[in-house]
Every structure is written in C-alpha cells, then in structure tokens.
C-alpha cells in the first residue's frame, strides 16, 4: 500500500475498502446512475456545484459506491472538481472507476474517458442518455468501442432503468484500459520522470497525476502536492517548466490534442449518424433570451415564487403551524408538563419568553421550515426545467458590473430562500474574489424567504408602491456595493461559460427528493443554530444584559434612525433570528409605536443588517474567520449608516407612505 497525500479531506475513506468511484461531467445523469446502483437517490441538477457533498452508498453486493463532484475537463477548474481529481489520485489499485458520460456528446465524453484512463484503474465507460442520442439519429457501436479501449462500455438510459442490469454486471467485471493515446515523446518523457518521483505516494495513479500536473497551472501543482516535500515539488515544477519551454503551445493544449486525435479516430469508426453530414443546430430561439420578454418571464417566475412561498407558505401554512399546531397543541402541552415539574429555571428555559420550545422550536419548525421548504420546491423545479442556466445568461452582463458573472445566479437566487445554504453554494464560483463578493451581497441585502415573508406582510399595509420603492433602494445599494467591492477586492473575474441543456419538464419525483434532501440539510444544520440563538437570548435575558445592549445601541437607533428605542432590541434579535428581528419591528408598527416612515426605515435596516447566526457560522466555515468578521463588521456599520442616511433624506423630503 502506498502512502497517500491530502488525507485531511473528510470524504476520502480508509483505503482498504474496495470502492467504485463514479466520475464524469455534471448533468449527464451520474446521480441517477448512482441512485439506481445504490437504491438511494441523490440530488440531480443542471449546473455544476449542487452535488458538492460526496455521497456514498452501497450496491447490491455490498460494494461501496461513491459519487464524485462533476468534472468538466482534463484539469480541475474549481474546488469540487479538484476533490474529484484527488479522489482518483488517491484510489487504490483494485478500486473501480465508473465513468458516466453523455452518449450524444460522444467526443466530449471520450476526451474525458481518455483522461480518466490514464489512472490505470479497472474501468467501465457508461454511455448514458442513450435515448436522447438515438432520437438524434446517433448510434454507437458499443462493442467495437469496448474492444478498442479495452474496457467494458455499456449504454444506458438510467432514468428509465434501461441498460442498468448490463451496467451492474460490467461493474463486477471491469478491466484496465489499453494505452491508446500517444503523446509527444518529450511530454511522455516528462510524464515518466514525474511519475517516478510520485510513485511512492500515488502508486499506479502516478501517471494520471503527472499528466494532470503537466496540463495545469503551476499554482495547482503546489496546491495538489501541498503535503509533499518542498524539494520534490520544486523538482516536479522544474520538469514541467523545462518541458513547456520546448513548445510554443501550452502543454495542456498539446495533451488535449493528442487525446483528441484518438477521439476523432474512435468517433469515425464507432459512431454512425443518420445523416453523415455535419448537422450542427442552425438556430437557437429561446424566449428567455429576448431583451424584453426574457425579463417578463423572470418577473413571472418571481411572481410564482412570491405566491407560493410568500402567500401560501408564509401565510397559510405558517399560520397553521404556528397558531394551531404549536399554539393549540404543542406549546400548551409542554407548558403543562413543565408546570408539573415545577422547576422555575427549567420552565423558563424551555417554555418561557425565550424558551427553547416556545420560541426556538416554534420559530424553526413552525415559521422558517415551511417557508424554506416551499422555496426549495420551486427552486428544484426551476433547476430541473433548465431555466436557471438561461437566467444566468440573461443576467450575466448585469452581474459583470458586480464583479461576478452569470454563474452567481445560483447562489444569489438561493439566497432568497435561505442565505445559509446560498453561502455554502458560493463554492461553485471560480475565483476567491467572486466568492467573497457573492457572500458579501448575500449577507448584506438578499433577504431570505423567512424575512421576505415578514417584509411582504409589512408592505401589504404600507402599499405596493412602497414595496417597489423598497426593492429599488435595496437593489441599487446591492449594485453599488457590488460595484465598489469589485473595484477594491483584488483578483480577476472569471469568464462565463455554461451549457444550455434542453428544456425538460421536471420529474415530480426528482423535485420532491431534491427538496427532501435540502430540507433535511436545513433541519440538521440550521435548526440547531436557531436553538443556540434562542439559548443565547435566554441567557442574555437571565443575566440581564439585554437592557444594557438596548441602552448602548439606542442613541444610534433614536438619533440617527429616528426609531423608537425598543427597535434596538429587534435589531439585536435580528442577528440571532432574522425573522424575529423583522417580526419584532412589525409588532412595534402594529401597536402604533412606529409610523409608516419609521417602519420603512426599520425594514430597510433589518434587511441590510448582519446575517443571521446560521449564515454567520456558514461564512466562517466557507470563507474563514477573518473574512467573516470583516464582512459582518462592514455590513453592521453599513446598515446603520445607509439606513440613517436614507432616513434623513426621506425626512428632508417629507416622504410618507
């Protein structure tokens, strides 16, 4: 057994267990294959990054199967792709590589297959979505391909189960691929030299690692081999530089070209097209790209979101959960129990004003959970339909202003559902700068669905015009902050490229399962933090800190924001629970302690205010403590500053709603 590098990734298992690694691009049905093989379903989606977490399952004969993040090219270009490459690099000799690919995009699939083949592992090539290929008049001589490559090749349409039996059989009898790619002898030599150095770390995978490094930027070499001795890394980099200097073209291109020659050869001998003339699509009409209609569609989508999440979920469902389920049954039940136990401290802790059950659990399950779940339902529908990449294209230019590109659509839209999850998803963005800007915008001004519920409730009183004005103000500020941070934060913007999958009517089963997984994540990750937040409030109340905080903050709240001092408490609560902060303000407004202008300002400030505790924790996890504190600090100051400024300006012009 050879030593392994990069062992500190949680999801690399103990090496002894034989496993099947599912590799391939995103959006080729890899997750569907996984679920078919393991009997356990996994999130399926149309754009890179959703299957960020590594999923494991067991096949029929107890074989461990691992689904890896989608890989798009011969060299990893994002963090989750790097994870996949690392997993292959660290695989042991009897692990099996199952490459799932899109049958109709044969050349693209084969280029990847030849890349994986360099790992010299027992391998199976699965040409999935064969039905789509057939519909286009493409037929593939699978047995010929299999003999050319030296590995079993199985075509499937996993979603209907077609071909899955053959695939399962093939996985039991994989074979090592033949060496059919010929590189330039100088590159071959370099690969051998680097392999030699890495042999004791990666064993049979050294060649794969060597070729990957030769095709990568030097910075990646440092990253990938970070656990390796510095001298060895230097030696490897020297070999790479020396090799590169002998060519005018980048090594990655040359390596790809060598592989491509084989791809072209295989294509011509194995693929038959109904009409042999090159028949690339001649046009691309899509209403979502229309300069006017595209935005109309977007507004329609937002309206549906609003109706389903805001009105139905936030209104009807939450009402039921909060007032009936918890109000009439659960809370009273527990109150009675604690009265019986009769320990005042416990009573307070669980069912008091800041009680874990009466406040924490009620809030999390009765209020936030239904809203977030409803959002996930709609979002999953959008994902599966193929709309999201088109939205990304539509908004790409606008996002460029913010130092982002269309890819940011996913995390930012998710932010309307749950900021914590959205912050996690910022992983899909390519550069650090973009990840920071997206995280900042999420923390600053993208209200999560729980908050939106309260905001909409608020504005149902203040009026529709006020609502529009509110969102306009918010939007402008987001653009401004984004624009400025793009200027200030060093780094490049990444280029935007995405595939536009065909519009597909989503399968309901998919949607429900995706929502289930996301909902389950939420329960596991976010709810405990809400409970923690409640507990902190409880403690603060018991110790008597709350009034002190109030007094500290109230001069600003009163003088600068012109709001009643009680509002300060709501802001503090806003950190621990976004929604509660907003609800607190709503309560003040209802009781007549704030007029409509104050209400407007308070809404603005609470929206801009620091991220909720769950989100804050996630930012620390994703961006690091320093960045998290910097962002939170900035947002804290900014929200008061901007809120106060807007407040003063509105007063100056005597605006009322």
């Amino acid at each position, binding site marked *: 057994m050879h030593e392994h590098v990069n062992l500190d990734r949680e999801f690399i298992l103990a090496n002894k267990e034989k496993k099947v690694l599912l590799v391939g691009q995103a959006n080729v049905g890899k997750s569907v294959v996984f679920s078919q093989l393991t009997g356990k379903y996994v999130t399926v989606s149309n754009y890179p990054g959703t299957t960020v977490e590594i999923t494991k399952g067991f096949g029929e004969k107890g074989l461990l199967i691992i689904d890896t993040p989608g890989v798009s090219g011969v*060299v990893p270009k994002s963090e989750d792709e790097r994870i996949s490459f690392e997993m292959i690099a660290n695989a042991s000799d009897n692990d099996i590589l199952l490459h799932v690919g899109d049958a109709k995009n044969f050349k693209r699939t084969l280029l990847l297959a030849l890349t994986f083949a360099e790992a010299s592992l027992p391998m199976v090539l699965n040409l999935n979505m064969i039905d789509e290929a057939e519909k286009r008049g493409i037929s593939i001589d699978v047995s010929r391909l299999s003999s050319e490559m030296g590995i079993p090749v199985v075509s499937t349409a996993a979603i209907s189960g077609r071909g899955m039996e053959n695939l399962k059989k093939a996985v039991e009898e994989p074979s090592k691929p033949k060496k059919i790619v010929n590189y330039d002898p100088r590159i071959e030599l370099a690969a051998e030299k680097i392999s030699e150095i890495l042999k004791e770390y990666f064993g049979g995978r050294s060649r794969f690692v060597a070729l990957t490094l030769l*095709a990568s930027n030097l910075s990646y070499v440092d990253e990938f081999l970070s656990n390796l001795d510095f001298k060895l890394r230097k030696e490897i980099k020297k070999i790479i530089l020396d090799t590169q200097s*002998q060519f*005018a073209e980048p090594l990655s291109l040359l390596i*790809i070209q060598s592989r491509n020659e084989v791809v072209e050869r295989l294509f011509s001998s194995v693929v038959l097209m109904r009409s042999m003339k090159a028949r690339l699509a001649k046009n691309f009409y899509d209403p979502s*790209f229309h300069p006017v209609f595209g935005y109309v569609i977007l507004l329609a989508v937002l309206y549906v979101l609003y109706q389903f999440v805001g009105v139905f979920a936030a209104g009807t469902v939450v009402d039921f959960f909060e007032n009936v389920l918890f109000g009439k049954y659960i809370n009273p039940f527990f109150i009675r129990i604690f009265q019986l136990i009769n320990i005042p401290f416990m009573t307070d802790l669980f069912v008091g004003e800041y009680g874990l059950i009466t406040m924490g659990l009620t809030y999390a399950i009765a209020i936030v959970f239904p809203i977030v779940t409803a959002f996930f339902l709609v979002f999953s529908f959008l994902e599966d339909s193929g709309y999201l990449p088109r939205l990304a*294209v539509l908004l790409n230019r606008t996002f460029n202003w913010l130092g982002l590109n269309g890819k940011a659509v996913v995390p930012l839209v998710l932010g309307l559902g749950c900021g914590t999850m959205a912050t996690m998803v910022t992983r899909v963005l390519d550069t650090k700068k973009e990840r920071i800007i997206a995280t900042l915008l999420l923390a600053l001004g993208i209200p999560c669905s729980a908050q939106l519920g309260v905001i909409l409730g608020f504005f149902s009183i203040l009026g529709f015009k006020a609502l529009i004005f509110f969102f306009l103000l918010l939007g402008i500020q987001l653009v401004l902050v984004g624009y400025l941070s793009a200027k200030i934060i060093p780094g490049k913007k990444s280029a935007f490229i995405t595939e536009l999958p065909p519009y597909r009517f989503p399968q309901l089963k998919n949607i429900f399962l995706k929502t289930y997984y996301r909902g389950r994540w939420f329960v596991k990750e976010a709810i405990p933090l809400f409970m923690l937040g409640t507990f902190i409030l409880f403690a603060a109340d018991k110790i008597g800190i709350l009034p002190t905080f109030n007094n500290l903050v109230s001069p600003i709240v009163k003088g600068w924001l012109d709001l009643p001092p009680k509002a300060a408490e709501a802001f503090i609560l806003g950190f621990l629970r976004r929604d509660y902060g907003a609800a607190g303000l709503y309560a003040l407004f209802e009781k007549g302690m704030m007029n409509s202008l104050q209400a407007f300002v308070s809404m603005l400030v609470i929206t801009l205010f620091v991220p909720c505790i769950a989100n804050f924790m996630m930012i620390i996890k994703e961006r690091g403590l320093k960045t998290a504190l910097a962002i939170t600090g900035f947002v804290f100051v900014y929200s008061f500053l901007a809120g106060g400024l807007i407040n003063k300006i509105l007063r100056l012009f005597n605006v009322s709603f």
Partner: protein
Amino acid sequence: MTEREFKRKSCSTENFADEVLEEIWIEFENNNKEIKPGIEVEADQVPKDTLNDLLEQGYIEKQDEKLILTDQGFERAKHLIRSHRLAERLLSDVLNFSDEEVERTACRYEHLLTDEAVDSVCTLLGHPRSCPHGKPIPQGRCCVEGAVKFRPLVVSLADLEPGEEAQVEYIGTKDNTRLAYLTSFGFVPRRTIRLLRKRPAFVVAVEESFVSLDEELAKEIFVRPRLTQVKLRRKKRRGFGWGRK
C-alpha cells in the same frame, strides 16, 4: 558543421549567409537560450567561407576573439525564421501540402518574401503562434497591432456572424485553467462549431449541445469559417469578402 554538410542542408544555392543565421537561431532555440542582439555565436556554427559574408553584410561582428550577432543579424534571422514558419503554416493549413512538400517549398519562401509580404500572410492566417511542428513563430508588427485589414482566414469567434459554421483552429489563451475550461466544453482544434447568437451572450452549437459564453472568452477562440454560402444579416463587409459568396 562542415561546409559540405551545410550546403547539403540548405535549399538555396546562393544565400548561405541566410541559412547560417537561421541555423544559429534554431541552435539557440533548441538549447533554450534567449536570442537577442549581442549574443555570442559559437565559432563552429559558422562555416569559414560564409563567415566573411556575414561579417561583410554586418550580421556578425568580431569582438576580441568572439563572434557577436549584431542587431541587423538578429533582425535578419528573425525575419527568415518568421517567413519560413509562416510559409509552412500557409502551405500545410491552407494549401494542404504534404509534410515533404512543405519542407521543400517553405525553405524557398523565406528568401523571397519581403517584410510586408510576410506580414500579409501572417494577417491572412490570423497571426498564428506556432508552425506545424510546434516551433514558435516570431511576432511581427502586424501581430502586435492585431491587424485585421481584410478578413483573415482565421478569426476569433467574436468576429463571426450568427449562423456561421467554423472549425476551431486554436485557443488564444495560454492559461491552463482557461484552456481546460474551454476545451471541456468542446472547443478543441479541428472541431466544427456553429455560432448561433451573440446577444445576450454568445450561444454556440458544439456537437449535440449548446454552450453559452461571454465575449471575453469568445475572443480567445480562433476559428476558420467555412467557405460556404452563408446568409449574412445586415453585415458590414470589411475589405474583400475573402472566399465569401
């Protein structure tokens, strides 16, 4: 090398000086040494007869006991290598000559072409960076200026019109991550693609999928448009419509 070896290698019976300069350049390239005016030339790289020629024409000068490549010598060598390799590209890519024929013919071109002629060929080919053997082509002024005087044979994807089909020639960026990005979506040399639209972003048909990318990336992809009849909408014709019907 000996005088005889040398004469055998060269294709021209007259311009030995030129040949020697080229050999010098290639030697330096092979040894990964930077070529610039003022570098020392090994005595055995220059056959005795030709040495006088080179000294006379001012391509090489003697400093102390050493032979030094002059500014003129550098420029001349650069021009020769550039012409030779561009000619190779022209013959092999456009005129589809066999490797042998390319060898024989390209060798003559370099002595015939003027600077301007070379620049024109370079522009025509879209300022290629390397010859068919992978050796770098020294840049000329036209490359620096990114000259597009008439529509070159090879253009960037950004310069195509919607509806045009083209074959990918090469990718402009040298950044490996970007390259990986682009190639993973199917933008590899010799792949045929079709540009479908430019707004709100570029949409390209590649194999059986549609890929969308922004202009920045589109500028990095260099393609050779199919010389077929194409319906061009509201297009401003630039210079000749080379090969267009």
